[in-house]
């Protein structure tokens, strides 16, 4: 079997004394969409934020255990370098309002003072916008501000900004929760294209979305990874009663 792109070993995360992620063990294969679902407060977003070390930015936050990216312990890397390899897209589209569409795509390079030639910049912008399925809609307006776009377009711009850095993994934290159904369908379709080049980890409250777009699904409950299985199995014959109760809406 191919080496996993991400391997999580006995991983815990705390806010102060409150343990929000408990002893998670997980192995993720590349070029897949992995959905993480669970009720509010189950630790799924915290776990996602641990993967690019954003969790530790919170006061009193700490972790224990290992997360290996391509076999390398992320806690022994520079967080900045890690975040270049693990991109993140948030719930609400957050393009930099003062930057143009063109500059937004290149923001990761600009903020990290990575020098690029004009030709390299043009190539990265076009390639990223094409991969984010936004190129045709914005190619004539690259010098306009990102905030001029619709919600769904802004979210695709944020995806383009993340993939411009050529990450191994793309973290998506409820990326469609602020979008209308048509924009949501657009982003969901995009995930299927993106997984050809990247591994996507998607936190979602929308179980049908997890069922539609993911190859594997993880179910978190009270900080614990209850079940991790191919999505088809998870939604037809889950092994754990807690998973079944959650996905069938019988959770008390």
């Amino acid at each position, binding site marked *: 079997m191919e080496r996993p792109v991400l391997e999580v070993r006995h991983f815990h995360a705390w806010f102060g004394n409150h343990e929000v992620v408990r002893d998670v063990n997980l192995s993720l294969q590349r070029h897949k969409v992995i959905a993480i679902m669970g009720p509010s407060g189950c630790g799924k977003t915290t776990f996602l934020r641990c993967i690019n070390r954003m969790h530790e930015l919170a006061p009193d936050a700490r972790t224990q255990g290992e997360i290996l990216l391509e076999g390398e312990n992320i806690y022994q890397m520079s967080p900045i370098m890690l975040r270049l390899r693990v991109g993140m897209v948030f719930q609400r589209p957050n393009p930099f309002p003062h930057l143009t569409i063109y500059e937004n795509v290149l923001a990761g390079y600009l903020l990290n003072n990575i020098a690029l030639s004009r030709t390299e910049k043009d190539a990265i912008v076009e390639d990223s916008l094409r991969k984010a399925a936004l190129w045709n809609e914005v190619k004539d307006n690259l010098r306009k501000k990102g905030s001029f776009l619709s919600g769904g377009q802004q979210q695709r711009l944020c995806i383009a900004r993340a993939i411009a850095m050529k990450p191994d993994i793309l973290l998506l934290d409820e990326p469609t929760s602020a979008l209308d159904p048509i924009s949501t369908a657009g982003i969901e379709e995009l995930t299927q294209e993106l997984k050809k080049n990247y591994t996507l980890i998607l936190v979602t409250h929308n179980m049908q979305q997890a*069922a539609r777009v993911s190859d594997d699904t993880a179910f978190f409950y009270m900080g614990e990874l209850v079940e991790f299985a191919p999505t088809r199995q998870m*939604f*037809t*014959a*889950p092994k754990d009663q807690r*998973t079944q109760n959650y996905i069938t*809406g019988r959770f008390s």
Partner: protein
Amino acid sequence: MTALEHALKELKDDVILMWIMVEAQLEAAHKAMLEYDQDLAREVMQKEKRINAYELKIDEQCEDILARYQPVAVDLRFLLAVLKINANLERTADIADGIARYVIDAPTPFEPALLQSTHLLDMYTQSLTMLSDTRIAFQREDTALARSIFQRDEIIDAYNLQALDIVCAHLQEGKASIRQELLVLSIIRKLERVGDQAKNLAEEIIFYVEAKVLKHHSKQEG
């Protein structure tokens, strides 16, 4: 109870009602055959339309639940199983209708000795019990009872295999009416299919409760 749970409970109640109606059809055809009651046989044929209408009603309920609630896990398996169970029950009712038509086609009452010697009566009793036991298994989610159907179907299959030889022997002896012998053989063939339908029903119950697919597998493996 959530709206989905309520809809699923209503569906389950309706499937059980369909099951009872189909059992009643098969029993009535049995009685019509034994008592050579052609009015009762015609009644079975009339009631077949009600079964068909009920099949459509259950299909519509399934469509509605799929469209509105997008069920998953045990609920999805239940719904998929019900869609097949519904079709199996309708086909079983068709078989009862077919037997009733043979009663109407028979010019004289069936010879009790012929029904006995061909094991038709044993097959009929076994078929009725298998059908009602699958209903009980469905109601109680009792997969042990569902599994018991597989062995009983083999008994029915064995009777069916013997039937041709028995009927040929009767014909060679020249003491039986050819038409009646052929009608009895046709009813036996129909009952063999009731056994197959009961087996299909049992497979769907096991799929729904245990998430195991037994179709096209050796039943011992399940």
